[in-house]
């Protein structure tokens, strides 16, 4: 079986699972875990979007 993901979907999948693990392992309470996981996810996805636009600008 072969799966082909686009650049963005690959980054999205990575951000989702990495954020879950970071949230669980880096914080103590459930609420802190959820908040930290969401913050990591937003940072990952936001970073991808910013990096994408920077590369777009550099290419022009």
């Amino acid at each position, binding site marked *: *079986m*072969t*799966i*082909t*993901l686009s650049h963005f979907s*690959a980054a999205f*999948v*990575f951000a*989702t*699972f*990495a954020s*879950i*693990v*970071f949230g*669980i*392992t880096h914080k*103590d309470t459930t609420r802190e875990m959820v908040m930290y996981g969401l913050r990591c996810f937003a940072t990952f996805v936001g970073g991808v979007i910013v990096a994408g636009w920077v590369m777009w600008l550099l290419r022009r």
Partner: protein
Amino acid sequence: MANSTTEKLKAAPAEPVSAMSVIAPALGWFIPGAGHAIQKRWIRGALLFVSIVTLFLLGLAMQGRIYKANSGDILDMLGFVGDVGAGALYIVTLAMDWGQGAIAMATADYGTKFMIVAGLLNFIAVADAYHIAIGKKQ
């Protein structure tokens, strides 16, 4: 500054070595999330299992490459360190001769990175399972 750090280290009580502090990390390395599950952190264990296993299997399905221990290249060795963190997933992949990598596919490199990251995330989960076992974390 250095003195206070030294004093803190001296004052810290020695952690008791229990069977769980050895079994939980070892099991957690072999089966992602099992180190938490064995300590009755069922939801955390299940989430870790799903996250790490899915990331690894997606990497495999994206035709990612698995690194072996004796390649001789320093970057390959670092890749091996990451991959081996996935425990049983790495062993099975190696035994079945999967993860040969497809150079023709542009996303295969993502797959390789997915598998390395899955292993590295499992190392973090193993450390967390150890901290729970010694009572440093709930």
